[in-house]
């Protein structure tokens, strides 16, 4: 059993809850807030892992993650949403109860799939692997169900958060170099997508994926 199992389990449960909240939330501004909360939970869990293993590089990773995912990326996304004037748009979604049911099915599937992984290693918490896997699948589901480009990007960022969460809570982190690389990718990605959105909207008058696709087909 790894040290500090109880608080880590609690954080994992909260993480899953937040992912469900994302799946359900319709307004972009709130979605960004939830994304920031997810970042907070992630940072806490990394800090906890750092405390448990007394590893300096995990502390550094926690700082990096906190800076990036609680402060920088949400601020960038907010600014983008404000400038695109889409923050309070209500997205049309598939019925919420159906989405939740699909999500539950995915979680059960993920826990099942996590069984052999947990059996392969020793001292790894099965629930955490299950939750991390479920979060990845749920983020993907969110990307599928969303109709606007910006919320799809948030789904993508949430998936990246889930991956980092899996990495830190199962194996106590990836090599520092890789984490730096991922952090750089995220920040560059957000910048580039921001530029792209303005171009997309100029071209198609909308950020609505459905409309863009229809225009594309009618060509």
């Amino acid at each position: 059993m790894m040290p500090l199992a109880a608080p880590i389990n609690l954080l994992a449960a909260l993480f899953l809850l937040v992912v469900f909240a994302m799946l359900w939330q319709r307004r972009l501004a709130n979605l960004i807030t939830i994304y920031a909360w997810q970042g907070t939970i992630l940072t806490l869990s990394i800090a906890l892992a750092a405390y448990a293993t007394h590893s300096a590089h995990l502390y550094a990773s926690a700082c990096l993650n906190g800076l990036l995912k609680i402060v920088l990326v949400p601020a960038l996304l907010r600014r983008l949403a404000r400038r695109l004037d889409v923050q309070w748009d209500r997205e049309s979604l598939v019925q919420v109860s159906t989405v939740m049911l699909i999500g539950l099915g995915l979680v059960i599937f993920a826990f099942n799939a996590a069984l052999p992984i947990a059996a392969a290693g020793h001292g790894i918490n099965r629930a955490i692997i299950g939750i991390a896997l479920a979060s990845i699948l749920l983020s993907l589901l969110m990307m599928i169900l969303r109709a606007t480009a910006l919320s799809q990007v948030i789904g993508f960022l949430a998936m990246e958060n889930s991956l980092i969460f899996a990495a830190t809570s199962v194996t106590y982190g990836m090599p520092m170099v890789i984490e730096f690389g991922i952090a750089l990718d995220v920040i560059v990605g957000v910048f580039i997508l921001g530029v792209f959105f303005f171009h997309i909207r100029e071209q198609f008058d909308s950020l609505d994926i459905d409309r863009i696709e229809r225009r594309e087909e009618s060509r």
Partner: protein
Amino acid sequence: MHVPIGLPWGLILGALILWSLLAFASLFIPKAPRIAPLIFPLGALGALCVAAAGLLALQGPPVTMVSPLGLPGLPFHGRMDALSGVFLVLFGLTTVAISLDLTGYRAREHYPVVARIGVQYHILLASLTLVFVAADAYSFLIAWEAMALSSYLLVVTDHHTRGARRAGFLYLLIEHIGALAILAAFTILIAQAGTGTRLVYTFAALHASHPDATVAGIAFLLAFLGFGAKAGLVPLHVWLPQAHPVAPSPISALLSSVLLKVGIYGLLRVTFMLLPTPAPWWGLTVLTVGLLTALLGALSSAVQSDMKRLLAYSSVENVGLITAAIGLALLFSAYGLKALAALALIAALYHCLNHAFFKGLLFLGTGSVLHATGERNLGRLGGLIHRMPRTAFMMLIGTLAVAGVPPLNGFASEWLILQSFLKATALPRPYLAMGIPLGAALLALVAGLAGYVMVKFYGIVFLGRPREARLAQAVESGPFERAGLGLLTLLCLAAGLWPAGAIALIRPAASLLTRADAPITISEAGARVDVAHAAYAPAILWVALGVVALATVLVLRARFSQAPRRAAVWNCGHPVIGARMQDTAEGFGQPIRRIFAAFLAVRSHHPAPDDRVPRYGSVVEDRFWEDLYRPAARGFEAIWAWTAALRPRRIAISLFCVLATLIVLLALAP
């Protein structure tokens, strides 16, 4: 950790810092034009430092250092040995001339263009230096990519024209194919050398890891592909004739003189200093590709009518010769004939140096002609010897050197290459021992063709009468351009008149690569070569030439002692003699085009006998476009169209496919 205290490192670091500062300062040229005249002369100073460091590296033992830069746990390693030394000298000396030429070039360009060239040129110089001193796969690749990107940006300096953008893209594409192959070669070596979690990536450690024959063979093929793409070996040479004409002339000179040699440097570094003792088939592969490249380059350059494209194909030919010599060296070392391998390597390295000098000279001279006339097409030039006598004289030296005329450097190294081909009879396999000397015949053909090409180039550009009226306005190039040309002319003369000195300079590199002391006199397996005099004895030759010339003058004086009369030239009975009656570039290349039609893709347009306005024209293309690149492009397009048809139109469906695949894979997992 070593602190770089040695003088060579000091010089290299000084040059790197200077060039970085200059690249940064160039950004401000449009705002503060006063700094513009200083930028390129200071760059030349940095190049001098690098050349000096190269000379020191050639004299002394290898010096290494570990730089504090790099990622945590993955520092950059540097090493300067004799091989780096040869290429640093080559690079430094040529770059001094090119920087001087750019000083003149700058004065006639707009500030934003000058700023762009200033930034990218100095970044390119710094990354080239780093490529030559890098001693681990990681820093080597970083420097390599920086070099590729900055040189791409220089090629597309004139990015407003479609031709420049297309040529630049082709260059970037082949550059990337090459870089990927090099990356793959290093990855294979690193993967087999790795023990546990420790990452082995320095060249020294990779060499010590002794990969087995299969791994080494695969790594060799990948490296040959990658470095061959950079050097311009067949069939990846197609970027040269496209990129050289569109780049500014000083940049063409840098591409041809230095950047092609980086490919040669990489090939030597990897095959001789990273991989174990070569297998015979490596040498045969390199030799065959080299000879093919030389032949095709020479044939193609004979039929070009664009000055810079002609020179670019001539560079292909020369790189082919160098590569063939390297292949021979690989064969010799595969059979343990170290002294002969050293001879072939000396020949290859010597020709590298010489080609850098004379091709740099020709490209810079072409730049002066281009500036004076605004014309690259040989069909619209002519008679420039009267307008630009000094440039014409220096270009004459350059063309004679390319043609391989004895007192100049081109002859010295080609003669050495020929010698090493003839010494292949020492190889213990009869097929090789008898077959390779036949390659010498091919070499002679190539040398002959090179002479033919240069007669065409010089004769049509500088001799005869101007083919266009506006050529009368052509003016001599400026003092800085002439200084650059003059420096390279002197280097050509020095390397040609004093081959013993040049060979003594290069010898440490050949000794390093063959791990044997390259002796002045080579006597192995019955073959005996005096390396110092293998080139030829220039002093005796000079005396003989002088005596013959003097004798001729005296005899002529004695027989025809009257004062010369001036009279009109006989006009062959024609009432009017016009400039259009002169031989054209196409006309001059015609015999080659006919005889070697099988090697070239020629599309001619012949007029009918009763045509009132007869027009004759022909377009010569590279056969590789028709036979290799277009089919490959069509194949890729077909694959692309097929995948595009498979692709779902809606993003949500694509994402759903990802999710479904993930779920299926997870469910199938045991």
